[in-house]
């Protein structure tokens, strides 16, 4: 086994582990914002590691995999913001365990 091969195994395995952690986090976290922490951060790094690791096994695929990685890193936070805004604007969706909530105060000030 060459060095590249071992590196590819390690990176791919780590990526799969982080993707599993993101699924578990989305399942276990109690409210929508905390689910978002697991669903955004962990899937981003998990996808990056997993796709890059598979690219190390098959180097001719690296350009296209790099494109997928770039797209995921650029768009994942955007969809998370959109969902977070939606969750905060809708009173029935908002979790009630927030210790402080500055955004609610500043919204209340406008009206």
């Amino acid at each position, binding site marked *: 086994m060459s060095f590249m091969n071992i590196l590819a195994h390690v990176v791919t395995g780590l990526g799969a582990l982080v993707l599993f*952690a993101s699924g578990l986090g989305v399942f276990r*976290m109690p409210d929508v*914002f*905390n689910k978002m922490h697991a669903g955004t951060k962990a899937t981003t790094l998990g996808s990056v590691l997993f796709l890059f690791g598979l690219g190390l096994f098959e180097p001719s695929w690296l350009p296209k995999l790099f494109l997928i990685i770039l797209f995921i890193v650029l768009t994942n936070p955007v969809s998370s*913001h959109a969902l977070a805004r939606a969750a905060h604007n809708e009173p029935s969706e908002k979790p009630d365990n927030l210790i402080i909530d500055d955004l609610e105060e*500043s919204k209340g000030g406008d009206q």
Partner: protein
Amino acid sequence: MTKNLPSIVSSSIVLFGIWLSLTLTFDLQEIILGVVVSVLTAVAVKGALTGNLLRLLSPEKFLAAVGYVMFFLVQMVKANIDIFFRIFRPVIPIRPGIVRANITLKSERARAIVANSITLTPGTITIDIIDDEIFIHWVFLPSGDVHSETQAMVDSFAGRLEKIFE
């Protein structure tokens, strides 16, 4: 038109790079078609895809950009280690809250980069930006003064970007 020229040029270059990595061929015909399509697309969106990347050609701005990417990658790995050990605890330690901080950057693009970076770094996601205030959700509120800690975290990103965008 002339005002947007650097943005259009940099958008064309990026689009052509995407074309090359999608087709993976180096025929003359494919390359000519790729150049035509990239330039047409870049002109149609007036270079809004990337903004002016040509300013990165000056050495200090280029170094600042590389420094930002490095800082961001380290933060992203730290964020994942943090969230990883949080998820596997029997009882997940959370102390959530939404905190405001000020953001001084004027450029819309810089603000978008800061917001997206904060979303991918330890324990924080951006909820909203209203005027000059950015609202951040913490999964575990820092001990001590919450507002100054949050402000310091935002400034560590915004300060690095200021060198590139001003």
